[in-house]
């Protein structure tokens, strides 16, 4: 019994890779100029113009990393993401705790929070560009507005849904207000925070790239923007591929931190191994 799931896992991986290869091969065959007779476009290189060519895209990515051209851009984008993520999460946590614990403040601010959350915040990018210039900080600001609300709403919810029994128990055990905050509200809210961090890290990335795309001189978003103005579709796809890979890495990093800090939570697939 014990070995069967492992074979299943391996087979699963195999099919996953097979699917990727199949898509790439189909992409290559359909776009390579002159490989197939034209059946949709009139000119042989049209398909490649619109959809790029996987081999050239791969070549572009390798090129970026070999020449080192990508590193400074990638670094900028990642720093923007990290800053937006950190500032937005901490602000969301603090303000979520504050409003969660203060019914008066939350009642007053409620309509404004709803409004701020419903606003399509990407439209703030030009304003941030005016306020913070075309450098890193306007992208960080955009990312913060995206991250903040995700974390904020989760913490707010988390604080309000703390079990009244656990709270009463802590009070009977002698906890004062400050101790209730650090021993009950904060850890209880943390499980909600972590549920939101996967979304938050993705949105921090979105904020950084969209910000760069709308106006910048550095970053992967800038590379994509540059390539687009010259109709260099291969470079656009290469940028997308690099961004996707790093988004996955960031997500994996969050999972890793979550695993370490949230050992107390039962996991769905977990059985007792002791």
């Amino acid at each position, binding site marked *: 019994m014990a070995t069967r799931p492992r074979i299943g896992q391996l087979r699963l991986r195999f099919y996953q890779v097979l699917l990727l290869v199949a898509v790439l091969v189909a992409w290559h065959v359909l776009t390579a100029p002159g490989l197939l007779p034209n059946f949709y476009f009139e000119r042989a290189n049209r398909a490649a113009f619109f959809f790029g060519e996987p081999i050239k895209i791969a070549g572009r990515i390798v090129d970026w990393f070999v020449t080192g051209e990508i590193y400074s851009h990638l670094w900028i984008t990642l720093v923007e993401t990290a800053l937006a993520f950190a500032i937005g999460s901490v602000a969301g946590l603090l303000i979520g705790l504050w409003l969660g614990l203060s019914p008066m403040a939350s009642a007053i601010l409620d309509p404004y929070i709803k409004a701020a959350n419903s606003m399509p915040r990407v439209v703030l990018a030009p304003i941030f560009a005016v306020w913070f210039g075309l450098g890193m900080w306007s992208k960080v600001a955009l990312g913060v507005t995206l991250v903040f609300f995700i974390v904020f709403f989760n913490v707010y919810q988390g604080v309000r849904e703390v079990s009244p*029994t656990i709270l*009463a*128990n*802590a*009070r009977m*055990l002698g*906890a004062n207000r400050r101790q209730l905050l650090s021993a009950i509200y904060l850890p209880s809210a943390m499980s909600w925070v972590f549920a939101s961090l996967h979304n938050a890290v993705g949105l921090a990335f979105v904020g950084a790239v969209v910000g760069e795309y709308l106006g910048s001189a550095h970053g992967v978003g800038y590379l994509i923007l540059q390539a687009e103005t010259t109709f260099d579709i291969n470079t656009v796809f290469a940028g997308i591929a690099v961004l996707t890979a790093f988004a996955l890495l960031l997500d994996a990093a969050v999972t890793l931190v979550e695993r370490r800090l949230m050992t*107390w939570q039962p996991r769905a697939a977990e059985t007792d191994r*002791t």
Partner: protein
Amino acid sequence: MTAAPALALRDITCRFPSVDGQGTYTAVADTTLVIEAGEFVSVVGPTGCGKSTLLNVAAGLLAPSSGTVEVFGEPMAFAGEVNRRAGYMFQTDALMPWRNAIGNVTAGLEFRGVGRAEAMERGQEWLRRVGLSGFGDRYPHHLSGGMRKRLALAQTLILDPDILLMDEPFSALDVQTRQLMENELLALWAADRKSVLFITHDLEEAIALSDRVVALSAGPGTRPIGNFVIDLPRPRDVAEIRMEPGFLAFHKEIWNVMKEEVLKAYARQRAA
């Protein structure tokens, strides 16, 4: 003059705004309940009769609409202050799921500013006393229902409260585990004779454990309708005592008083 009682609830009335928002619902009316130092008192009553309300008043978690509470002769203020001489064992799980067993047991010591080394030492000692040594690094979701109750008991008793308030603490356990826990509780209680206010809907449990059983009427406006001194010999074994003629006589006597109230509560719930 005798020593002041451990806990004296006098003329307690608790009113809540009713569910439909109009008028009030009187959960407890003019209830006086006195627990002497070292006495084990059980309060029994039909479901939904306001037993937990009474316990929350005794704990200082809920201010009564009228009436006073005295703890060892001192009146309780209810101004955000809980009853510092009482430990409270809740009906539902009150352990902090993000703390492991030792972290939960030592929480009270931590809140009261006891040093970490001393807290850990006393925590381990209490884990041992409730049969959980070696489980210190487990989180509550790793423990069975009975183990979690023992952990909650250790969490409360480590602070050495003079009064123990218990709100149907064993009601979620299976019969065997429950009898084991009841015996453990009696053993721990016999060691230093705390004053216990034990809430239950289980009459057998109440008789088996207590020095005195107070029966409450059905709500609304719950009040005591019977007071029975259980003079069965101690130490008791909760599993065996249930067969004894004295036990059965008490059971019959108290049940006669309670029966009508239970039926009344049932009829009211069906009508609602």
